[in-house]
Protein backbone atom coordinates (compact mmCIF):
# COMPACT_ATOMS: atom_id res chain seq x y z
CA UNK A 1 0.00 0.00 0.00
CA UNK A 2 2.92 2.33 0.68
CA UNK A 3 4.08 2.14 -2.91
CA UNK A 4 0.74 2.68 -4.61
CA UNK A 5 0.95 6.17 -6.19
CA UNK A 6 -2.84 6.49 -6.59
CA UNK A 7 -3.53 5.96 -2.90
CA UNK A 8 -0.70 8.25 -1.87
CA UNK A 9 -1.70 11.13 -4.14
CA UNK A 10 -5.41 10.81 -3.36
CA UNK A 11 -4.83 10.71 0.39
CA UNK A 12 -2.52 13.73 0.18
CA UNK A 13 -5.44 15.61 -1.35
CA UNK A 14 -7.97 14.12 1.07
CA UNK A 15 -6.20 14.58 4.41
CA UNK A 16 -6.28 18.41 4.49
CA UNK A 17 -9.91 18.47 3.37
CA UNK A 18 -10.84 15.89 6.03
CA UNK A 19 -9.25 18.05 8.71
CA UNK A 20 -10.85 21.23 7.38
CA UNK A 21 -14.21 19.46 7.40
CA UNK A 22 -13.58 18.36 11.00
CA UNK A 23 -12.98 21.98 12.01
CA UNK A 24 -16.16 22.96 10.20
CA UNK A 25 -18.12 20.29 12.08
CA UNK A 26 -16.50 21.38 15.34
CA UNK A 27 -17.32 25.08 15.08
CA UNK A 28 -20.54 24.75 13.10
CA UNK A 29 -22.08 22.35 15.63
CA UNK A 30 -24.18 25.20 17.04
CA UNK A 31 -25.93 25.68 13.71
CA UNK A 32 -26.09 22.27 12.09
CA UNK A 33 -25.56 18.61 12.91
CA UNK A 34 -22.23 17.91 14.50
CA UNK A 35 -20.21 18.87 17.54
CA UNK A 36 -17.17 17.87 19.47
CA UNK A 37 -17.60 14.09 19.30
CA UNK A 38 -18.06 13.90 15.54
CA UNK A 39 -15.43 16.54 14.81
CA UNK A 40 -12.91 14.80 17.06
CA UNK A 41 -13.40 11.51 15.27
CA UNK A 42 -13.16 13.07 11.80
CA UNK A 43 -10.05 15.01 12.78
CA UNK A 44 -8.47 11.80 14.06
CA UNK A 45 -9.30 10.05 10.79
CA UNK A 46 -6.97 12.48 9.01
CA UNK A 47 -4.06 11.32 11.17
CA UNK A 48 -5.07 7.66 10.93
CA UNK A 49 -5.30 7.82 7.13
CA UNK A 50 -1.87 9.44 7.06
CA UNK A 51 -0.47 6.65 9.24
CA UNK A 52 -2.11 3.88 7.19
CA UNK A 53 -0.89 5.19 3.84
CA UNK A 54 2.55 6.57 4.73
CA UNK A 55 3.52 4.19 7.49
CA UNK A 56 2.84 4.16 11.22
CA UNK A 57 6.23 5.60 12.14
CA UNK A 58 5.84 8.62 9.93
CA UNK A 59 2.31 9.02 11.30
CA UNK A 60 3.66 9.03 14.84
CA UNK A 61 6.16 11.65 13.83
CA UNK A 62 3.32 14.00 12.84
CA UNK A 63 1.61 13.75 16.23
CA UNK A 64 4.00 12.41 18.88
CA UNK A 65 2.42 10.21 21.52
CA UNK A 66 3.70 12.34 24.42
CA UNK A 67 1.84 15.37 23.07
CA UNK A 68 -1.12 13.15 22.30
CA UNK A 69 -1.50 11.87 25.86
CA UNK A 70 -1.33 15.41 27.17
CA UNK A 71 -4.04 16.50 24.74
CA UNK A 72 -6.35 13.77 26.09
CA UNK A 73 -6.08 15.21 29.59
CA UNK A 74 -6.14 18.81 28.36
CA UNK A 75 -9.51 18.33 26.64
CA UNK A 76 -11.14 17.04 29.81
CA UNK A 77 -9.43 19.84 31.74
CA UNK A 78 -10.90 22.49 29.41
CA UNK A 79 -14.36 21.02 29.99
CA UNK A 80 -13.99 20.82 33.75
CA UNK A 81 -12.22 24.18 33.84
CA UNK A 82 -15.19 25.84 32.15
CA UNK A 83 -17.32 24.57 35.01
CA UNK A 84 -14.85 25.81 37.63
CA UNK A 85 -14.69 29.20 35.90
CA UNK A 86 -18.45 29.55 36.20
CA UNK A 87 -18.15 28.65 39.90
CA UNK A 88 -15.70 31.53 40.40
CA UNK A 89 -18.09 33.89 38.60
CA UNK A 90 -20.83 33.23 41.19
CA UNK A 91 -22.71 30.70 39.11
CA UNK A 92 -23.43 27.00 39.45
CA UNK A 93 -21.00 24.43 38.07
CA UNK A 94 -21.20 24.48 34.24
CA UNK A 95 -23.68 27.39 34.35
CA UNK A 96 -22.56 29.29 31.25
CA UNK A 97 -24.88 32.27 31.82
CA UNK A 98 -22.31 33.98 34.04
CA UNK A 99 -19.38 33.54 31.63
CA UNK A 100 -20.27 36.74 29.84
CA UNK A 101 -22.30 39.87 30.61
CA UNK A 102 -25.14 38.68 28.38
CA UNK A 103 -26.52 35.21 29.34
CA UNK A 104 -26.98 34.13 25.71
CA UNK A 105 -23.44 35.22 24.80
CA UNK A 106 -22.22 33.34 27.87
CA UNK A 107 -24.04 30.21 26.69
CA UNK A 108 -22.39 30.54 23.27
CA UNK A 109 -18.96 30.89 24.84
CA UNK A 110 -19.54 28.01 27.25
CA UNK A 111 -20.77 25.65 24.53
CA UNK A 112 -17.82 26.59 22.31
CA UNK A 113 -15.30 25.85 25.09
CA UNK A 114 -16.99 22.64 26.16
CA UNK A 115 -17.21 21.33 22.59
CA UNK A 116 -13.55 22.23 22.09
CA UNK A 117 -12.64 20.15 25.13
CA UNK A 118 -14.71 17.20 23.90
CA UNK A 119 -13.21 17.43 20.42
CA UNK A 120 -9.65 17.57 21.72
CA UNK A 121 -10.12 14.57 24.01
CA UNK A 122 -11.96 12.46 21.43
CA UNK A 123 -9.53 13.11 18.58
CA UNK A 124 -6.47 12.43 20.75
CA UNK A 125 -8.04 9.27 22.16
CA UNK A 126 -8.84 7.94 18.69
CA UNK A 127 -5.36 8.66 17.33
CA UNK A 128 -3.70 7.22 20.45
CA UNK A 129 -5.89 4.09 20.35
CA UNK A 130 -5.00 3.53 16.71
CA UNK A 131 -1.28 3.82 17.40
CA UNK A 132 -1.54 1.66 20.50
CA UNK A 133 -3.03 -1.08 18.32
CA UNK A 134 -0.80 -0.48 15.32
CA UNK A 135 2.52 -0.25 17.13
CA UNK A 136 2.38 -3.32 19.33
CA UNK A 137 1.81 -5.84 16.60
CA UNK A 138 3.92 -5.14 13.54
CA UNK A 139 2.16 -2.50 11.51
CA UNK A 140 2.62 -4.58 8.36
CA UNK A 141 0.10 -7.06 9.71
CA UNK A 142 -2.61 -4.44 9.94
CA UNK A 143 -2.20 -3.43 6.33
CA UNK A 144 -1.44 -6.73 4.63
CA UNK A 145 -4.24 -8.69 3.07
CA UNK A 146 -6.11 -11.36 4.86
CA UNK A 147 -4.93 -14.83 3.93
CA UNK A 148 -1.64 -14.17 2.14
CA UNK A 149 -0.36 -12.19 5.10
CA UNK A 150 2.56 -14.42 5.99
CA UNK A 151 3.95 -14.59 2.46
CA UNK A 152 3.51 -10.92 1.74
CA UNK A 153 5.19 -9.80 4.91
CA UNK A 154 8.42 -11.48 3.91
CA UNK A 155 8.24 -9.95 0.46
CA UNK A 156 7.28 -6.36 1.22
CA UNK A 157 9.62 -5.76 4.13
CA UNK A 158 12.94 -5.63 2.28
CA UNK A 159 11.27 -3.85 -0.63
CA UNK A 160 10.02 -1.06 1.60
CA UNK A 161 13.46 -0.42 3.08
CA UNK A 162 15.13 1.55 0.29
CA UNK A 163 11.89 3.29 -0.72
CA UNK A 164 10.91 4.83 2.62
CA UNK A 165 13.61 5.71 5.05
CA UNK A 166 11.53 6.59 8.15
CA UNK A 167 9.40 3.47 7.84
CA UNK A 168 12.43 1.23 7.51
CA UNK A 169 14.02 2.87 10.55
CA UNK A 170 11.02 2.13 12.70
CA UNK A 171 10.50 -1.42 11.46
CA UNK A 172 13.73 -2.44 13.14
CA UNK A 173 12.87 -1.08 16.56
Amino acid at each position, binding site marked *: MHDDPVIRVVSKVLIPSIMLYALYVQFHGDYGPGGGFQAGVIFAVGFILNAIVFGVNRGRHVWPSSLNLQCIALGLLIYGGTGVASLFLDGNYLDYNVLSGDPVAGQHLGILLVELGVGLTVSSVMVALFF*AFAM*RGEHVRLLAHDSTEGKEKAKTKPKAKPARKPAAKGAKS
Partner: protein
Amino acid sequence: MSEFIVNASLMGLLAIIGVLIIQQHRLFAVIILSGAYSLSAAAWFVIADAVDVAFTEAAVGAGVSTVLALGTLSYVPREEKARSVEPLAMTISLGAGLLLLLAVLDMPHYGSDAAPIHNHVAPHYITQSGSEIGVPNIVTSVLASYRGFDTLGETAVIFTAAIAVFLILTGWTRKKN
Protein backbone atom coordinates in the same frame (compact mmCIF):
# COMPACT_ATOMS: atom_id res chain seq x y z
CA MET B 1 -45.37 4.85 -0.52
CA SER B 2 -41.82 5.73 -1.55
CA GLU B 3 -40.97 6.26 2.12
CA PHE B 4 -42.25 2.78 2.88
CA ILE B 5 -40.10 1.27 0.14
CA VAL B 6 -36.98 3.06 1.41
CA ASN B 7 -37.71 2.09 5.03
CA ALA B 8 -38.44 -1.53 4.14
CA SER B 9 -35.33 -1.92 2.00
CA LEU B 10 -33.10 -0.34 4.66
CA MET B 11 -34.57 -2.57 7.37
CA GLY B 12 -34.20 -5.58 5.08
CA LEU B 13 -30.60 -4.63 4.40
CA LEU B 14 -29.92 -4.38 8.16
CA ALA B 15 -31.49 -7.81 8.71
CA ILE B 16 -29.51 -9.37 5.83
CA ILE B 17 -26.23 -7.92 7.12
CA GLY B 18 -27.07 -9.18 10.61
CA VAL B 19 -27.65 -12.72 9.34
CA LEU B 20 -24.44 -12.57 7.28
CA ILE B 21 -22.47 -11.48 10.35
CA ILE B 22 -23.80 -14.48 12.30
CA GLN B 23 -22.99 -16.91 9.48
CA GLN B 24 -19.54 -15.54 8.67
CA HIS B 25 -16.57 -17.15 10.42
CA ARG B 26 -13.78 -15.01 8.97
CA LEU B 27 -13.32 -12.09 11.38
CA PHE B 28 -12.09 -9.75 8.64
CA ALA B 29 -15.40 -10.15 6.82
CA VAL B 30 -17.32 -9.72 10.08
CA ILE B 31 -15.61 -6.37 10.74
CA ILE B 32 -16.29 -5.08 7.24
CA LEU B 33 -19.91 -6.25 7.51
CA SER B 34 -20.37 -4.45 10.83
CA GLY B 35 -19.06 -1.30 9.15
CA ALA B 36 -21.68 -1.77 6.44
CA TYR B 37 -24.30 -2.33 9.16
CA SER B 38 -23.35 0.96 10.83
CA LEU B 39 -23.54 2.82 7.53
CA SER B 40 -27.01 1.41 6.79
CA ALA B 41 -28.08 2.29 10.33
CA ALA B 42 -26.81 5.84 9.76
CA ALA B 43 -28.94 6.10 6.62
CA TRP B 44 -31.91 4.90 8.67
CA PHE B 45 -31.23 7.54 11.36
CA VAL B 46 -31.27 10.24 8.66
CA ILE B 47 -34.72 9.06 7.59
CA ALA B 48 -35.82 9.14 11.26
CA ASP B 49 -34.71 12.85 11.38
CA ALA B 50 -31.94 12.09 13.88
CA VAL B 51 -29.19 13.75 11.83
CA ASP B 52 -26.78 14.19 14.74
CA VAL B 53 -27.07 10.52 15.68
CA ALA B 54 -26.61 9.54 12.03
CA PHE B 55 -23.50 11.68 11.83
CA THR B 56 -22.04 10.05 14.93
CA GLU B 57 -22.93 6.56 13.72
CA ALA B 58 -21.31 7.16 10.33
CA ALA B 59 -18.15 8.71 11.81
CA VAL B 60 -17.68 6.48 14.85
CA GLY B 61 -19.54 3.26 14.02
CA ALA B 62 -18.69 2.91 10.36
CA GLY B 63 -15.39 4.80 10.33
CA VAL B 64 -13.14 4.66 13.35
CA SER B 65 -14.59 1.50 14.95
CA THR B 66 -13.88 -0.47 11.78
CA VAL B 67 -10.27 0.72 11.72
CA LEU B 68 -9.78 -0.04 15.42
CA ALA B 69 -11.40 -3.46 15.04
CA LEU B 70 -9.02 -4.17 12.15
CA GLY B 71 -6.21 -3.19 14.49
CA THR B 72 -7.52 -5.68 17.04
CA LEU B 73 -7.45 -8.31 14.31
CA SER B 74 -3.65 -8.29 14.46
CA TYR B 75 -3.88 -9.73 18.00
CA VAL B 76 -6.46 -12.46 17.49
CA PRO B 77 -6.86 -15.48 15.19
CA ARG B 78 -8.34 -14.75 11.76
CA GLU B 79 -11.08 -17.37 11.96
CA GLU B 80 -13.79 -17.86 14.49
CA LYS B 81 -13.75 -21.34 16.02
CA ALA B 82 -16.56 -23.50 14.66
CA ARG B 83 -18.89 -24.49 17.48
CA SER B 84 -21.97 -26.65 17.61
CA VAL B 85 -25.29 -25.10 18.63
CA GLU B 86 -26.07 -25.61 22.31
CA PRO B 87 -29.81 -26.22 22.80
CA LEU B 88 -29.98 -24.53 26.23
CA ALA B 89 -28.19 -21.37 25.08
CA MET B 90 -30.34 -21.27 21.95
CA THR B 91 -33.55 -21.54 24.00
CA ILE B 92 -32.51 -18.78 26.40
CA SER B 93 -31.48 -16.46 23.55
CA LEU B 94 -34.67 -17.04 21.58
CA GLY B 95 -36.78 -16.60 24.76
CA ALA B 96 -35.05 -13.31 25.64
CA GLY B 97 -35.46 -12.08 22.08
CA LEU B 98 -39.14 -12.99 22.10
CA LEU B 99 -39.69 -11.16 25.40
CA LEU B 100 -37.98 -8.06 24.00
CA LEU B 101 -40.20 -8.20 20.91
CA LEU B 102 -43.26 -8.47 23.18
CA ALA B 103 -42.02 -5.41 25.10
CA VAL B 104 -41.77 -3.47 21.83
CA LEU B 105 -45.54 -3.98 21.35
CA ASP B 106 -46.14 -1.97 24.54
CA MET B 107 -44.02 0.97 23.44
CA PRO B 108 -45.72 4.11 22.12
CA HIS B 109 -45.94 4.38 18.33
CA TYR B 110 -43.03 5.92 16.46
CA GLY B 111 -43.43 9.71 16.45
CA SER B 112 -46.44 9.66 18.76
CA ASP B 113 -46.83 12.97 20.62
CA ALA B 114 -48.35 11.18 23.62
CA ALA B 115 -45.12 9.28 24.30
CA PRO B 116 -43.79 9.99 27.82
CA ILE B 117 -40.40 11.04 26.49
CA HIS B 118 -41.99 13.91 24.55
CA ASN B 119 -43.90 15.25 27.56
CA HIS B 120 -41.26 15.57 30.27
CA VAL B 121 -38.50 18.13 29.66
CA ALA B 122 -38.49 18.05 25.86
CA PRO B 123 -41.23 20.72 25.45
CA HIS B 124 -39.20 23.08 27.60
CA TYR B 125 -36.08 22.48 25.52
CA ILE B 126 -37.92 23.00 22.26
CA THR B 127 -39.80 26.16 23.29
CA GLN B 128 -37.15 27.84 25.47
CA SER B 129 -33.85 26.86 23.82
CA GLY B 130 -34.04 29.77 21.38
CA SER B 131 -34.30 32.44 24.08
CA GLU B 132 -32.27 30.73 26.82
CA ILE B 133 -29.34 29.37 24.83
CA GLY B 134 -29.69 31.09 21.46
CA VAL B 135 -28.16 28.19 19.53
CA PRO B 136 -30.10 27.11 16.43
CA ASN B 137 -29.26 23.41 16.84
CA ILE B 138 -31.33 22.25 19.83
CA VAL B 139 -29.36 19.00 20.01
CA THR B 140 -26.19 20.98 20.73
CA SER B 141 -27.91 23.13 23.35
CA VAL B 142 -29.26 20.03 25.12
CA LEU B 143 -25.97 18.16 24.84
CA ALA B 144 -23.61 20.92 25.91
CA SER B 145 -25.73 23.16 28.12
CA TYR B 146 -28.91 21.61 29.56
CA ARG B 147 -27.22 18.24 29.97
CA GLY B 148 -23.69 19.55 30.39
CA PHE B 149 -23.06 17.24 33.33
CA ASP B 150 -23.90 14.16 31.25
CA THR B 151 -21.51 15.22 28.51
CA LEU B 152 -18.79 15.90 31.08
CA GLY B 153 -19.36 12.37 32.34
CA GLU B 154 -19.18 10.97 28.80
CA THR B 155 -15.91 12.75 28.14
CA ALA B 156 -14.55 11.44 31.45
CA VAL B 157 -15.62 7.92 30.41
CA ILE B 158 -13.74 8.23 27.11
CA PHE B 159 -10.71 9.53 29.00
CA THR B 160 -10.79 6.70 31.56
CA ALA B 161 -11.39 4.00 28.95
CA ALA B 162 -8.52 5.26 26.82
CA ILE B 163 -6.13 5.31 29.79
CA ALA B 164 -7.16 1.73 30.65
CA VAL B 165 -6.59 0.56 27.06
CA PHE B 166 -3.16 2.18 26.93
CA LEU B 167 -2.19 0.54 30.19
CA ILE B 168 -3.12 -2.85 28.77
CA LEU B 169 -1.73 -2.41 25.25
CA THR B 170 1.49 -0.53 25.89
CA GLY B 171 2.41 -2.75 28.82
CA TRP B 172 3.49 -0.01 31.19
CA THR B 173 3.08 -2.39 34.08
CA ARG B 174 5.38 -5.01 32.61
CA LYS B 175 8.47 -2.84 32.50
CA LYS B 176 8.98 -3.27 36.23
CA ASN B 177 9.65 -7.00 35.90
